[in-house]
């Protein structure tokens, strides 16, 4: 084929995405896995073969079999149904937490970068102080302060992600502020609001999207770890962290399926979000193009 050199060789986003995914099958798998997982979570109540909280004392602690694919627990609840329904809860927590920290973090970080001066220094100091604490410990304290509820888990998981969004938004916007196309837009008569929403935020969005994907993984990890140590969501709610905590005691009696399936679901979910984040970074970040 003769290449047409009269046109610049532009790589469109879809073409770039295709290139990255073709080169990295693991990322490609994540691009399919995460939407599939989301679909499973949304449809969980209709897909789940049994009522996740229905006990069945005639079928207690059965290993994985034809009618109970993931086995049953000590009161005969179907583990598969519980894992599916828990996906809904864990993902709902993660999505709302990350949305919250995305919006709040971008506004704070963006404003700090735009206004500079005292607000900027104050924001920097506050995120520094927040990052000084192990974030999981902050989340623990927060759940203890706000009480054991899903809302406080969401707030704690949002707080864990917040400093990363603030820092990223701040650095992205402060780089964009000095870019020539922003200068040009200002010279062309756009007002500050148009510049912010028309030029800066669209250009900061790609990297923020990468952070959203990684942040979702963090939030799932954080929420599950909190309920694992006994804070936040309480049994008998179907939640991955609680299921692993309850199943862990039974592992040493040979009933491995109680903990293994929720643990696998948890790990695969976080892995999916992390790989998706990596893949998105490769697609978006021009510097990694080869």
């Amino acid at each position, binding site marked *: 084929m003769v290449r047409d050199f009269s046109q610049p060789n532009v790589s469109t986003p879809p073409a770039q995405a295709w290139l990255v995914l073709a080169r*990295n099958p*693991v990322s490609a798998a994540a691009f399919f896995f995460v939407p599939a997982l989301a679909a499973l979570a949304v449809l969980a109540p209709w897909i789940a073969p049994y009522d996740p909280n229905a006990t069945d004392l005639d079928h207690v602690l059965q290993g994985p079999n034809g009618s109970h694919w993931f086995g049953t627990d000590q009161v005969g609840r179907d583990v598969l149904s519980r894992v599916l329904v828990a996906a809904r809860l864990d993902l709902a927590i993660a999505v709302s937490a990350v949305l919250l920290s995305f919006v709040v973090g971008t506004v704070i970080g963006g404003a700090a970068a735009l206004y500079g001066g005292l607000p900027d220094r104050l924001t920097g*100091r*506050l995120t*520094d*102080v927040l*990052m*000084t*604490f*192990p*974030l*999981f*410990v*902050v989340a*623990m*304290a927060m759940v*203890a*302060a706000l*009480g054991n509820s899903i809302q406080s888990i969401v707030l704690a998981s949002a707080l864990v992600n917040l400093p990363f969004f603030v820092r990223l938004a701040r650095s992205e916007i402060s780089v964009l502020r000095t870019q020539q196309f922003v200068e040009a837009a200002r010279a062309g008569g756009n007002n500050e609001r148009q510049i912010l929403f028309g030029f800066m935020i669209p250009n900061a969005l790609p990297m923020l999207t990468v952070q959203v994907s990684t942040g979702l*993984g963090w939030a799932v*990890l954080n929420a*599950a*770890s909190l309920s*694992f*140590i*006994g*804070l936040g969501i309480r049994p008998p709610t179907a939640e991955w*962290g609680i299921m*692993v*905590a309850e199943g*862990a005691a039974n*592992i*040493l009696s040979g009933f*491995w399926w109680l*903990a293994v399936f929720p*643990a696998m679901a*948890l*790990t695969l979910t*976080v*892995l999916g*979000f*992390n*790989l998706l984040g*990596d893949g998105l970074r490769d697609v978006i970040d021009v510097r990694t193009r*080869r």
Partner: protein
Amino acid sequence: MTRNSDIRRFLFRRLLGVLPLLAGVGLFTFILVRVLPGDPAVYYATGPMATQEEIAQVRTTLGLDRPLAEQLARYFKDISVGDLGRSLVTGQLVSSDLRERFPASFELTFVAMLLALSFSIPLGIVAAIRSGSWIDHVIRFIGTLGVSMPAFVAGIILIFIFYFKLGLAPEPIDRIDPFMLKPPAVTGLLMIDCLLAGNFPAFASALARLLLPALTMAIIVVAPLMRMTRASMIAVLTSDFIRTARAAGMGWWKVYVSYGLRNALLPVLTTIGLVVSYQLGANVVVEKVFAWPGVGSYALNSLLATDYAPVQGYVLLMACVYVVINTAVDVLHALVDPRVRIE
């Protein structure tokens, strides 16, 4: 400007920067305890049958009836002399509880970091040398898998395999065999104490109990360390002096390790400072899984028992550890790299 005065100026600036950070940390913990549910005066009063007068009296002795600003000043005075209050569960001073339990957490975290580095640096180098190949992808995938696995899942899997299935690991409880004679506590670091006492069976027992929890904490931080090693190795390996070294026909050890790795390690050092914070948080979970008597499980048990003075002391301690480690990392960085010293 001489080298020494540069370093001194850097140290001074850096330590000055720590002060507002510590003040912020103190303020945060002060607020934390005030938003935690429950009235401390009720807890400190004689018991559930305490009368209103008794509670009011306790409130006065604790200074809780004073204005907030005065309470804050008193709080800063107390923590500056190491007075962190008393734990209601153990009945001991929080500071002595923490001092007693901190070495267990320190030993665990330190060994975990050594393990993590001994995996991540070689893997990162290999991934950098073979970047883009299937080896690179496999290494990256394994690292991501490690960081995606919650610490409690990793811990439970390790217990299941090495204790339950293979029987290689000892019971995942405590730091040493309960029937083993414990060495006198000199440093509090059990393995060092065993060696000091010349008690080798106890050392072996302590080491065996430490391995699984340390491995658990290592797994979760291998990925960020490895990525940083890989990225900075790639940056170094594409630089001119490496090309020259290669062209001069130097051996691979000289090219990759003597020249390459030495120059690539600085960003890894900085990453250690950041990763430690994540490990300190994961401590709580890992110590729960392995019934490890460190500060993390102490804080968790206190939190669940609504005993907040230990939680506050723990949060303060962790923040200080983080600040100390990161300051040390920065100072080391400045010692090694002159560019950092002169901003």
